[in-house]
């Protein structure tokens, strides 16, 4: 198959102006938009976290009313999950998947652009409700990112209905994005690129895409039931009509648990690209990595109720969900062990991406351990809805998923822009971020175990010290990200030119393209041996 690009009349011209972005059908431009969107949302969601941390700096209320605090918690969670991590990974997939499998672009480029542009619409609606709230008109969503009924149905503020539709739009975006990734991977692989030759990042995204298609519609279903319960008199979540508030939780977590793996599997993929590169050694146990990813994805469908141990399920169900959840430690362990074995007897250097990758392995594993502790039902009765949980999920999400995105950006930025980033600043960013992240999140384990519930604007005195520590860490963490922003902008604007291969140990099709790559990645499918 030899090929030229058929782009109707004008070949290889880059469209210019605002139209280039609005009407794009180019995977790189769309990837770039996703990444910037994610970055902006990171600052917005992070600013909300800083409001939370400021209020929690000491006991007593200092800055915000409890009602507003709840809105901050809710929007922080929603924005970080749906606005930062997910779009961030989709952005990486857009940029990298076609290049890694030797394709010219995504399989369905127009739909790709729609997937992106739905997000500003969805988040515009969500953030508008916060702006209205700050202007004294109604309240923004205030029921936590898990929006349990009946707090979000009978007792939800008016903005809940906007929130519901905004979730519908996010879901539509994710489903179309996932379909696109699946079609691209199934259909546009270069000749010779068999499934078991695909880079691990492509594999993890392939599996993630299936998770997305399977669970985003379920989320759409559950918010639809909320909508009808709120406005059209149905009683899905009301016992008076034969429904059950816990039904909401089952459906939500049937989506929600796979969702957390949606946010970590691509991270595993990123780490699996970076570690071999800087260890100058092939990834250890390629096929077991693939099978482990698939097992995690499979198990993620049968463990959802570990979020619901205190809802009073029958004991048989509690046991089942405990055992099933424990099993996830095994494939995840396989991954961790494989990464360590990849490093073992390698020839390592420690550029910023590698530093973030190593920090990821450490900190994600810590988060995984606390996850394992929480799936032990009788112990979870004590941990549930405390800061111990908050510590757990920030270790896997912030120092896990978010760190992997930072690692990926440093790793691929030279490829994207054609320029090397500023290594010194990168390292400063890394150390500030990693140290402050631990100052921020580690003490949360202690206050959680000591009994501090989550989602509270004020706490009793015995939790004061560790909360202060966390707040200090939070501000350092937050402002360190301005360095990141600066490094990225600086790198886009210029710097030492990057080679095709960029990194000495880099291996794969994306590193055979020039840096920056041509507008249509592979116009001639490369032959993979």
């Amino acid at each position, binding site marked *: 198959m030899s090929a030229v690009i058929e782009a109707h009349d004008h070949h290889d011209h880059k469209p210019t102006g605002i139209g280039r972005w609005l009407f794009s059908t180019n995977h790189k431009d769309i990837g770039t938009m996703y990444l910037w969107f994610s970055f902006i949302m990171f600052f917005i969601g992070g600013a909300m976290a800083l409001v939370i941390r400021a209020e929690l700096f000491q006991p007593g209320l200092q800055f915000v009313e409890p009602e507003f605090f709840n809105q901050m918690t809710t929007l922080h969670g929603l924005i970080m999950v749906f606005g930062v991590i997910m779009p961030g990974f989709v952005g990486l997939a857009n940029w990298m998947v076609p290049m890694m499998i030797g394709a010219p672009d995504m399989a369905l480029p127009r739909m790709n*652009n729609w997937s992106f542009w*739905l997000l500003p619409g969805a988040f515009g609606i969500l953030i508008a409700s916060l702006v209205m709230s700050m202007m004294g008109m109604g309240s923004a969503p205030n029921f936590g990112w898990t929006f349990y009924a009946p707090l979000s149905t009978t007792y939800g503020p008016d903005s809940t209905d*906007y929130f519901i539709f905004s979730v519908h739009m996010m879901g539509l975006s994710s489903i179309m994005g996932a379909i696109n990734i699946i079609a691209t991977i199934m259909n546009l692989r270069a000749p010779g690129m068999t499934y078991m030759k695909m880079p691990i990042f492509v594999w993890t995204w392939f599996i993630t895409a299936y998770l997305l298609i399977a669970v985003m519609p379920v989320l759409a279903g559950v918010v639809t039931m909320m909508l009808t319960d709120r406005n059209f008199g149905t009683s899905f979540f009301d016992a008076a*009509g*034969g429904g059950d508030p816990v*039904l909401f939780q089952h459906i939500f977590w049937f989506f929600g648990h796979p969702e957390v793996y949606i946010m970590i599997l691509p991270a595993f993929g990123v780490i699996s690209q970076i570690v071999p590169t800087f260890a100058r050694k092939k990834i250890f146990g390629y096929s077991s990595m693939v099978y482990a990813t698939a097992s995690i994805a499979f198990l993620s469908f049968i463990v959802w109720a570990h979020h619901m141990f205190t809802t009073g399920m029958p004991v048989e169900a509690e046991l089942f969900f405990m055992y099933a959840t424990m099993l996830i430690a095994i494939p995840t362990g396989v991954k961790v062990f494989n990464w360590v074995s990849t490093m073992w007897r390698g020839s390592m250097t420690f550029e910023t991406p590698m530093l973030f990758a190593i920090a990821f392995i450490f900190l994600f594993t810590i988060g995984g351990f606390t996850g394992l502790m929480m799936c032990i039902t009788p112990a979870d009765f004590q941990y549930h809805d405390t800061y111990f949980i908050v510590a757990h999920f920030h270790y896997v999400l912030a120092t896990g998923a978010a760190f992997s995105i930072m690692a990926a950006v440093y790793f691929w930025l030279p490829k994207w822009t054609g320029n090397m980033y500023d290594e010194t600043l990168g390292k400063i960013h890394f150390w500030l971020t990693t140290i402050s992240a631990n100052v921020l999140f580690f003490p949360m384990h202690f206050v959680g175990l000591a009994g501090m519930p989550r989602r509270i604007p004020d706490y009793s005195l015995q939790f004061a010290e560790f909360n202060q520590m966390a707040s200090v860490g939070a501000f350092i963490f937050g402002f360190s990200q301005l360095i990141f922003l600066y490094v990225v902008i600086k790198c886009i604007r210029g710097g030492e030119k990057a080679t095709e291969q960029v990194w000495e140990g880099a291996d794969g099709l994306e590193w055979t393209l020039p840096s920056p790559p041509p507008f*249509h990645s592979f116009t001639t499918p490369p032959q993979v041996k």
Partner: protein
Amino acid sequence: MSSSNNQDVYFIPEPSKWPVVGTIALTTSVIGAVNTIHSGELSLLLPVGLLLIAYLFFGWFGAVIKESMDNCYNEQVDRSFRIGMLWFIFSEVMFFAAFFGALFYARIIVMGWLGGSSNNAMTHELLWPAFDAVWPILTNPDNVKYVAPAEKMGAWGLPAINTAVLLASSVTVTIAHHALRAGHRKPLIMWLAITVALGIGFLFLQVEEYAHAYSEMGLTLDSGIYGSTFFILTGFHGFHVTMGTLMLFIMLVRAIKDHFTPEKHFAFEAVAWYWHFVDVVWLGLFIFVYWL
């Protein structure tokens, strides 16, 4: 557009305004919808948004049809479309799975608990002592807040006829497909037209049934979980039948305009898949909502 059906060429569409139009259309519609729900009177944004959505569909699909007629699509693009459509249908399956899940959970688990089974003996004893755990619920736990229907929607009247109608339409659309593949245009148009008619017939009967449920049986959206699951499942199914019928109708028009060839007619196949999917969902509904 010269490069006829060239297998060696990647096809990448030109920049397109439709995605952005799509976002504007959806955002406008949903804001309009919420404003309408909240104020109780039609918000102008809603019809504007819906018109934009219609414009979007005509425009976007129009562009695709044009490209297809111009032979821009090679087999690879065709495969991408197929993969896309299949997984889109799968996502729809999961959407219905959420509602079926709610139905099973309500029927099997919640019912039992409200009636005092498993670890919920006290739920029954203290909160709902009068509640009788039989499905369908003809007396809700709180029958003042949610007034239960007088009777169950039987399976063997209209619903059985509707089942026959939908099954028949699945057969007719398959016959049409065979005709298409054999290059017989007349039978294609005839069988497709029959399929559309059956789709419309189904919808007509469904409306009839809803009217009966509302006016005579007291089975409404607010008659408790039975009504809730009944209407959400049949309602979303009905919505899908509507979309499917519309799509079939467009295929009919395109068949009349002679758009399809025996080899290349992906659009037709996609619609046929969708129609079969709608049919299968109906079978699930018929068994679990109406019959058992």
